[in-house]
């Protein structure tokens, strides 16, 4: 471990020089800008003098000034060229690059005229190529400008995205906050519900409603689609359903009325599948109606599992004037009622297979005898295990109920 420490504490001497060179040529610092402006001014002066020299009758003093000016220009350009080589990460690559040649050509005529005066005129004209040095300046300025603009736009986008994500998080939190945290406390029955929201905001919801007559309303529902529209429609559906549940003792009538309300305020043509049941904790009778939801399952004490009949009613929000027939089932002590959304049975694994009803039935059969909490827990972890690394595309919502009269 000591070697790297020693290396970094004693940087090679050239690094300091290179850093100095880098602050003058390249970069966006104040020295680099000043140096750049100086070079720019010299390019302008030198181009002007190239033009002046083409005039024939120049006074002697002008010629002296021009010669002195050329000396200064070449010294500065040579210095710049050297600095650029020093500052370059890959020195050879710079020397052989386009601007490496341009920089060399800008000074070469001066040094070469000393060697052979025959090419003097040609070489002097080559100095016009110094105009190419301007191009670098323009390009560099443009690139710096674009980079800055891009960075600004990126950060604006990031801010907007962070805000959107934050708002979605709040919406999701609100969405799960309106779901009841626990089953109403009633002698003789208990229930557990759980919703695991998908990454994109989904539209599943469940509800337990304490009705005026002492019975308990049980809702399992799934809004078509995802995202903010689905979340809004879910909130409207849930509120309407709750309101109507207090007014109608018949589950079918409650769904029919809720359907009218949803059809009247449904600009996006969304719809919601709703299972609505009313459990009498005294008698164990569950009366229910089904608006297009997959039928809940009743696991009997003898190990058989029945799907509640009466499925196939139209989903809510599609068409007004639909009636929903009410059905009822007598729950027996030790029976378990399992309500779920298709996020359970249509959870996919990486091999693109669906979890399916059979796996759900097997889990219920195995864990039926325990508490409703344990049953929900087991089914959820079985779905999670099955899906593995596959992304969860839909909300996974599950409720288990038990009637156990005193």
């Amino acid at each position, binding site marked *: 471990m000591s070697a790297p420490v020693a290396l970094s504490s004693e940087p090679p001497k050239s690094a300091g020089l290179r850093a100095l060179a880098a602050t003058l040529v390249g970069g966006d610092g104040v020295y680099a800008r000043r140096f750049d402006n100086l070079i720019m001014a010299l390019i302008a002066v030198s181009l002007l003098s190239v033009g002046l020299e083409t005039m024939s009758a120049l006074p002697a003093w002008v010629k002296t000034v021009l010669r002195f000016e050329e000396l200064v220009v070449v010294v500065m350009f040579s210095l710049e060229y050297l600095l650029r080589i020093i500052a370059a990460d890959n020195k050879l690559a710079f020397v052989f690059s386009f601007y490496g040649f341009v920089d060399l050509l800008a000074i070469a005529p001066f040094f070469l005229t000393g060697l052979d005066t025959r090419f003097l005129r040609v070489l002097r004209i080559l100095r016009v190529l110094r105009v190419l040095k301007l191009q670098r300046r323009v390009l560099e300025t443009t690139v710096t400008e674009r980079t800055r603009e891009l960075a600004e736009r990126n950060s604006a986008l990031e801010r907007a995205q962070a805000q959107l994500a934050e708002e979605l998080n709040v919406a999701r939190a609100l969405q799960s906050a309106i779901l009841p945290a626990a089953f109403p406390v009633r002698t003789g029955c208990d229930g557990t519900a759980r919703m695991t929201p998908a990454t994109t905001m989904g539209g599943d919801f469940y509800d337990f409603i304490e009705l005026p007559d002492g019975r308990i309303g049980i809702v399992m529902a799934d809004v078509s689609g995802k995202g903010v529209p689905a979340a809004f429609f879910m909130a409207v559906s849930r509120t309407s359903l709750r309101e109507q549940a207090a007014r109608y003792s018949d589950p079918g009538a409650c769904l029919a009325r809720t359907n009218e309300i949803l059809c009247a305020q449904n600009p996006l*043509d969304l719809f919601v599948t709703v299972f609505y049941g009313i459990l009498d904790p005294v008698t164990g009778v569950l009366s229910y109606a089904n608006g297009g939801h997959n039928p809940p399952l009743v696991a009997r004490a003898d190990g058989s599992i029945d799907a509640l009949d009466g*499925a196939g009613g139209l989903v809510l929000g*599609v068409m007004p004037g639909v009636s929903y027939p009410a059905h009822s089932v007598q729950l027996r002590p030790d029976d378990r009622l399992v309500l779920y959304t*298709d996020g359970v049975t*249509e959870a996919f694994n990486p091999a693109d297979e669906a979890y399916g009803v059979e796996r759900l039935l097997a889990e219920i059969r195995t864990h039926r005898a325990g508490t409703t909490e344990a049953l929900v827990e087991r089914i959820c972890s079985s779905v999670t295990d099955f899906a593995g690394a596959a992304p969860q595309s*839909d909300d996974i919502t599950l409720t288990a109920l038990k009637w156990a009269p005193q």
Partner: protein
Amino acid sequence: VKVSVERIEQVTIVIAEGRLDFGAAASFQLQVEQALAAAGKAPAALIIDSTGLEYVSSAGLRVFLLAARNAQRSGLGFAVCSLRQGVREVFELSGFSRVMTVHPDRATALAQLAVPPA
């Protein structure tokens, strides 16, 4: 979902294949709308042939609903045909098979919708 369109006289047939889930619903909707727009005026009709459709989510069902409504608004005939077992169950469970015409195969659908040229 993969979509192709055929035309038999006045009947436009949209053939859907693959999985119609939330992610695919928007593009499927667009293609069905284009097919509807190109179908022409009554007594034209639109059939969505779902022989190759493996899966339909609730967002996918919505596209069928919108197509049926659209067709009805423009006075066109509309039917769905050749649903596979799993998809047919979704149609039955959601009550959709009661609000739109579902035929067991294309021939039946064509026989019901095709209006012989005058």
